[in-house]
């Protein structure tokens, strides 16, 4: 097991060489991972093509469960996107120093996760070439979108979130791209870095306005991150479906999103840290703190589950009671129990520091978190729909076909493909922010 003091204390002058080294030659493992991701994307694309060619019957969503795993995946990926902005914006405003080494990774994850999430409504509508109907655009029939619909709120919330997260990521990257520009030899890479860094020099004027913009971006991203998953939760809560019509959905979804997002950051950071030799910069202490965040949000999620169950029992609406009984004792009971185990019971282990600082155990736990949170969305979206008000459809079981499976794995390929490309071309640890907390060494050697 690695310990917190296993690595040498980092110095100011080590930041550039160490972190920019990650942009250099990648090993066989990197290329193999990238190839696997590309293959998954191709497989997912082939499944989608099959769906377009054969029609929507290949998708498991059918009455009464008219929202299937595409919507589950959409909510799952939007949730994954949440920890990025939490770590980069909220923890920035709270001045939590531990975020500095990990926030770039989390923020890139946010952007790629929203890019992945955005694919699923397109897949779900069946005729993707009409997806622009969701946008308010002038048309000769004078038809406009219904601004009272949570689905339209979602279009605005997710696209705003994607834009703001991308701007936030890019703004933070500008000084670091400049550092990369100065470190590489003349060539295409240098030219692209020069363009992307906007000719950044690090003058006092630039830093002043950079900090000014960054704090406002963080200040606006903070309510945004809370709003996005609230709006996603209202896709469900605004309807009167049993299992969906609940006022606690917004905070419950936000806590779940942060929980799953932090889980995914751990899932990615553990192997990435090893692959890119970032042990000096992303320390066990960072993982310890992320694990605490995971534990905290897990407890909120557990509390939300309990509140939901309690309220259903307390008001005694028979349709709601049936939906909740079905979650744990219906034909898809395994999903319900696994959800509880992965999201509430297994994270209890994180109370022990030994677990939080053992990267293997933490990584395995983070996988359970990912699985659990996917299942939570499955339980909410699909299981609730299989128990509508009408009694005669009560035996429905949702069947997941090869198209959905292929697209599900394809989405992981798509997400990790972008992530791996990002690590190849842009610094995965925020150089300038890490330097900010390191002492500027006295009499640093001028080369």
């Amino acid at each position, binding site marked *: 097991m690695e310990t917190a003091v296993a690595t040498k204390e980092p110095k100011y*002058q080590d930041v*550039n060489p160490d972190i920019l080294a990650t942009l250099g030659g990648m090993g066989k493992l990197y290329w193999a991972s990238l190839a696997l991701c590309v293959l998954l994307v191709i497989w997912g694309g082939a499944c989608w093509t099959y769906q377009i060619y054969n029609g929507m019957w290949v998708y498991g969503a059918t009455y009464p469960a008219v929202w299937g795993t595409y919507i589950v995946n959409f909510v799952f990926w939007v949730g994954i996107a949440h920890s990025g902005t939490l770590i980069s914006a909220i923890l920035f405003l709270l001045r939590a120093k531990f975020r500095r080494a990990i926030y770039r990774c989390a923020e890139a994850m946010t952007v790629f996760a929203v890019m992945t999430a955005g694919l699923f409504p397109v897949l779900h509508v069946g005729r993707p070439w009409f997806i622009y109907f969701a946008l*308010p655009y002038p048309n000769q029939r*004078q*038809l*406009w*979108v219904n*601004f*009272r*619909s*949570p689905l*339209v*709120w979602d279009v*605005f*919330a997710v696209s*705003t979130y994607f*834009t*703001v997260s991308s*701007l936030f990521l*890019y*703004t933070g990257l500008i*000084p670091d791209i*400049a*550092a990369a520009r*100065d*470190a590489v030899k003349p060539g295409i890479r240098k030219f692209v870095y*020069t363009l992307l860094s*906007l*000719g*950044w*020099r*690090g*003058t*006092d*004027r*630039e*830093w*002043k*306005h*950079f*900090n*000014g*913009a960054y704090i*406002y*971006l963080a200040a*606006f*991203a903070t*309510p*945004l991150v809370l*709003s996005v998953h609230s709006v996603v939760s209202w896709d469900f809560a605004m309807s009167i479906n049993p299992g969906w019509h609940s006022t606690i959905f917004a905070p419950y979804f936000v806590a779940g999103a942060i929980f799953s997002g932090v889980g995914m950051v751990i899932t990615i950071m553990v192997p990435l840290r090893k692959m890119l030799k970032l042990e000096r910069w992303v320390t066990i202490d960072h993982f310890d703190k992320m694990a605490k965040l995971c534990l905290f949000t897990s407890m909120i999620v557990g509390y939300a589950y309990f509140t939901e169950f309690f309220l259903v029992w307390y008001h005694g609406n028979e349709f709601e009671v049936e939906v909740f009984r079905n979650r744990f004792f219906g034909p898809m009971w395994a999903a319900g129990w696994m959800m509880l185990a992965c999201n509430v019971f297994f994270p209890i282990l994180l109370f022990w520091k030994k677990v939080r600082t053992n990267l293997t155990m933490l990584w395995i736990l983070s996988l359970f978190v990912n699985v659990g949170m996917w299942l939570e969305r499955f339980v909410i979206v699909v299981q609730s729909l299989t128990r509508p008000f009408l009694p005669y459809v009560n035996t429905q079981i949702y069947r997941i076909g090869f198209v959905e499976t292929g697209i599900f794995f394809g989405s992981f390929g798509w997400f990790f493909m972008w992530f791996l490309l990002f690590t190849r071309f842009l610094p995965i640890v925020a150089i*300038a*922010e890490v*330097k*900010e907390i390191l002492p*500027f060494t*006295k*009499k*640093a050697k*001028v*080369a």
Partner: protein
Amino acid sequence: MKPQGVLGIFGDMDTACEAIRELKSSGYGRLEVLSPAPHHELEHALDDGPSGVKWFTLTGALTGLASAIALTTWTSNDWPLVTGGKPIVISPGYFVIMFELTVLFSAIFSLTGFIVLSRLPHTRLRVGYDERFSDASIGIWLPVAREKFDAATAALKKHGAEEVKLETR
């Protein structure tokens, strides 16, 4: 005027801060400090005013809010269909759109403000820049005319610059 001046390179924070304080008031014009990261010590030494990005942000926020009100109100009136006995305009649901567009526009305007006020993008890096400034050195750029080069060089060296470069274009 073509940029020209003297560039001092510092490897020590305290020396650089001391040099900034001294040189700021010695008639060399607005000195420019270059650093790899935003250090508070340098900010305090420069004692510059706050950033004006906030005005861009405010303009963006108000523009976004106004756009959202206009979009929702106008489109609702363009097809005035009563649903659920609710009023045509002003529904709590519009607040979501207003919030999202306020955030969207303020973020875009903040970034624009940062780029405009920082006078980015720069097409040239040659004058008054050294690649070490993105690594682990601090630079002080004195924008002085040729005839003052010697005096400025001496001043920078006196205040602890490890290297001084004369820069012209």
